[in-house]
């Protein structure tokens, strides 16, 4: 009895192995690693929406290859990122990674990725120097130095003479300040004040007061989205800054986040590479698919878009390359790769592995009683600014 059951068990295991090996040939496993829970859970949630929207619209077949997605949660802690990436690679045998909510997590996982040469698609992390950490990183967002430079040039062209730089006191904030100042001053403007706002700040009115006293023409802002951005905008509005000063940020007023603010967010400008209001067939499919699956009032963010475009890229590569999908081949193919994204035409710069794409200047306006980002200007095909 016992031996019989053992033999049966062995047969089942062997059969199972055969099935899984034969399945592996035409299945491509994609590991998604990021903050699915914890303080950064918004990112993970929006990635999931982007990925599921893409798969709803395109099915799970890329050519002859079946795409399978496996998620791992870092809870937003870089210490987990490496372990989770390792687990996905070793145990789940994923062939591509989509991931990392913050740049330090991506940097932490880079050694593992380099070791096994897994192409890794970064939906949004934005540290300029990050791309040096791994030759297998592909950026689908931008590096924040690019936004800051676009903002500085656009503000100067719009006649802004003096600027105040108010950024959160951590690496991305410093990156923005360091890119904005030379760009604005190089174009003939003056930076009259600059504050690094501690991340522990709860009441932002002291910073609004400092800005108001300096009376700049414009403010370059960089504050983490969510509670901090909401509080900072409220504090600036209470000081009248939203009305008489050009306030420019990056990701503070994502389309999906505008409802977190009250009317005070009106007139907030962002220099960024996407707006849900863009008029092109790819964007129509993306936003339409998202809302059909997750509800009429769900709006995309650059997080949603980055995950969606990561999948678009993986599908395209998987159907073109089939069984030849591996790190070095993928990276070679991606140099100069171009496709139509909901954001418009996007080309991966061969050298930096970052997108060449349109930037938009958006402004929050009241559109039929609803606060929406409205595109006020487009800067075509901006090349990424070298980070290192």
């Amino acid at each position, binding site marked *: 009895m016992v031996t019989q059951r053992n033999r049966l068990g062995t047969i089942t295991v062997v059969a199972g192995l055969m099935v899984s090996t034969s399945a592996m040939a035409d299945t491509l496993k994609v590991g998604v690693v990021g903050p699915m829970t914890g303080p950064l*859970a*918004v990112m993970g949630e929006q990635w999931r929406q982007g990925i599921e929207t893409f798969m709803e619209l395109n099915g799970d077949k890329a050519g002859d290859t079946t795409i399978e997605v496996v998620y791992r949660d870092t809870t937003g802690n870089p210490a987990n990122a490496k372990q989770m990436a390792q687990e996905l690679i070793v145990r789940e045998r994923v062939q591509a990674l989509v991931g990392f909510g913050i740049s330090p997590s991506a940097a932490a996982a880079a050694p593992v990725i380099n070791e096994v040469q897994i192409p890794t698609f970064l939906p949004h992390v934005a540290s300029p120097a990050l791309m040096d950490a791994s030759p297998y990183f592909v950026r689908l967002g931008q590096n924040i130095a690019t936004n800051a430079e676009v903002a500085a040039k656009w503000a100067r062209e719009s006649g802004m003479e003096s600027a105040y730089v108010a950024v959160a006191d951590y690496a991305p904030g410093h990156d923005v300040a360091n890119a904005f100042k030379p760009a604005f001053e190089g174009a003939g403007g003056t930076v009259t004040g600059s504050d690094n706002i501690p991340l522990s*700040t709860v009441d932002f009115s002291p*910073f609004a*007061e400092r800005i108001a*006293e300096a009376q700049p023409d414009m403010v370059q802002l960089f504050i983490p989205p969510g*509670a901090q951005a909401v509080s900072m905008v409220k504090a600036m509005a209470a000081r009248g800054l939203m009305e008489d000063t050009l306030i420019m940020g990056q990701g503070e007023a994502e389309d999906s986040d505008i409802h977190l603010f009250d009317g005070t967010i009106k007139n907030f400008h962002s220099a960024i590479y996407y707006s849900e209001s863009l008029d092109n067939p790819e964007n129509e499919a993306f936003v339409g698919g998202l809302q059909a699956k997750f509800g009429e009032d769900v709006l995309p963010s650059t997080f949603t878009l980055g995950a969606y475009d990561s999948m678009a890229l993986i599908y395209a590569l998987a159907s073109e390359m089939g069984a030849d999908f591996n790190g070095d081949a993928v990276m070679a193919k991606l140099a100069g790769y171009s496709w139509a994204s909901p954001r418009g035409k996007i080309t991966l710069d061969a050298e930096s592995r970052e997108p060449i794409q349109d930037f938009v200047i958006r402004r929050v306006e009241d559109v039929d009683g609803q606060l929406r980002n409205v595109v006020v200007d487009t800067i075509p095909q901006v090349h990424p600014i070298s980070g290192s």
Partner: protein
Amino acid sequence: MASAASSLTFILLYGVSYGLVLFIISIGLVITMGLMRVMNLAHGAFAAIGGYIAVGVMTNFGIPFPLAVVAAVAGVVALSVVLERLVFVNLYGAPELDQVLMTIGINFIVIGGLTIFFGPNVYPISLPDYLTGNVDLGIRNFEVYRLFVIAMGLIVVVGLWIMFEKTSFGAKLRAAVDNPSMTRVIGINVNRVFIIAFGIGSGLAALGGAIGAGMLPLEPYYPMKYLVLVLVVVALSGFGNMRASLAVAVLVGIVDTAGRFLVPSFGGFIIYIVLVVLMVLRPEGLFTKRAA
């Protein structure tokens, strides 16, 4: 830089209004910790739940703000009384580590619950029109909302003062804080005093969470995010010292505001430097009489 006078009025007005929100949120913990010696690190969770209830009934049922605040306080008082009987009663006299682990655990449950039901993002409050905009105080413009917060803070101060100094419940409470076993001996039902005090403390947290939501945005991590500030106030106040906690909260508000305004890069540290210095000099609390 504008004139020194304008900077000073800014620091005072904004510091006091910020301090009073901290006071309303923290005072409940000062009371319950002083009374029951329970290190309730889940106190911020009651503030968060209060805020979520207030905003929830406002946005879903169109209930006006004042009634929503009442609903928040009532809801949290009811919840806290149940929790006191089920959970906190087991912590009285338990080792501090048990208390810390248990109440931190409650925090994580609340954070997880808020994320499941309301999403991981900020839960936005839209204040009624009469609380938005600015009012001209003569010396400078000031937010109506912050004036309202100051007024509410003062109402809470006066209300607590009357309750503690002028009612027989207040006398029993003070007796129970000073010497629980002696209070029991003279026939006062200390357990009942505990339940009521716990309810009041949690209700005040809910009040702070609800009316402070315009300044401290509601989000699932609220219970952890503001815990440090609350603990600063509690630590500097000393056990059960309510009068001190008002002064301490306002001091924290003013020091924090002044620090960030005058030396922004170090602004985040100044309050902790003050905390360390004061804790070294006056470990029993800022205004506590030293034991002879």
